[in-house]
């Protein structure tokens, strides 16, 4: 719990810094996207700290790719006898 509060505080500080820094350089679109990505990151971090089941890109990749990879793996495994 404490960890998540600290993470949020840190993210807020970083967010404010990004917002101000890019404001002075007139990079408005950039800072919007930066804050958006920062938000995703913060949600992930807090979720991780609270042991929430988070969406894992590895699972998506696995879902898409395992139909191709599984046969290959089993082909590699077959005949794998010791000398």
């Amino acid at each position, binding site marked *: 719990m404490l960890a998540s509060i600290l993470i949020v505080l840190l*993210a807020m500080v*970083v967010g404010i810094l*990004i917002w101000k*820094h*890019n404001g002075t350089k007139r*990079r408005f*679109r*950039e*800072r919007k*996207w*930066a*804050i*958006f*990505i*920062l938000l*995703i*990151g*913060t949600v*992930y*971090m807090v*979720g*991780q700290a609270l042991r929430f089941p*988070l969406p*894992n*890109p*590895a699972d998506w*990749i*696995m879902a*898409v*790719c*395992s139909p*191709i*990879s*599984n046969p*290959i*793996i089993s*082909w*590699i495994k077959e*005949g*794998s*006898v010791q*000398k």
Partner: protein
Amino acid sequence: MSKNAGINNAEITSGQCAKLYILFALGSSALILPTVVIEIAKQDAWLTMLLAGPINYLVLMIYLALADRFPNLSLVQYMEKLIGKWAAKALMLTYVLFFLVNSALVLRNISDFLGLSVLPITPTWFIDAIFMLVVIYGVCLGIETMARTGEILYFWSTFVIFIILIALLYQLDYKNFEPLLYNGILRPIKGLYPILGFPIGEFVFITMIFPLVRKTDRKKLRKSLKLATVMITAYSVLLTLFLIGVMGVDESSRSPFAVYDLAKNINIEEILVRVEILVAMIWIGTIFMKLVLCVYVLSVSTAQLLGLSNYRPLVVPFGFVVLPLSLIIYRNIAHARVFSAGVWTVYSVFQGYVLPLLLLIIAVIMKKRDNSEGNSFENRYQANESIGDNKSGDETDSIATKEPAPT
């Protein structure tokens, strides 16, 4: 390079580009890859590594052919010119995801390694956070700085690898290689499977670096990248040879960080022991470069996808994403094995070979070439590094005297 060539992009030399390429390869293959390959190909794993060289070379040819057609654009940029805006955006998103996951995986490798070998009691997130901090600093400094850092790390790691190999020379046991090809040529070929994805498919990052190579160096680039491929193959073959020769197949396919364990065998007169810390240091250096390049390419491709003017605002937020992602990406060891040895290869091959090859075919059919400049975000310095090859001086070399002082 003239000083007034429009936007002054930061430039790296062809040698620096090749060294980044080698470091990226060493970052993974030096420590983790041999274990996986030896597990499949047993004592013929070094043949596998040798076979990986030509494949690496072919993939590189795809990238270079694309770079010839679009010399000043990155992969993400010429995609849009080839297949239209929205289809390109969708594909770009897959690349962003690819580099994001890749960064998380690399960071995960680091914390796994350090947690296991050097810092057993320090919490993982702390190791990751410190590492990420340095990486963010490096990425924000830009490609020129990264390339120069890479050069130093390259010399350092080459030096240390050779020291280690020489120190282990007398421990090589040739019996470990017998019988050669006990199961036919099929086994080493099967061993290629993880290599296809693990370093080779990831080499697609280099297409994002190509437009930054100094224009006068473009001719040399092809040559130095070919040389780099040869060197990568040589490194991995040598390391695998020594692993099998010194530690034997069983031991080296069991240890998760085989080269680190290999260095533990060094023992010179009971004085020079525990030099594996050197291996840890060079490996941290090379994998640092790999992570820096991954995060750089991630930020740059995202910025190009979104049409931003600068990638630097995105670097810190991506740090916030990569860090928790690296903690959750593997659920457990079994999950890690299935993912890294099987699934990742397919995904990586798709991103690293299939898509670029398709793009190349489309480009050839449509006869597209484009010399236009894309925004590569590197205009911090006004062509300072190229100050050296300015040949268009105007002053004469005659002995001229200044106007005499009014005495």
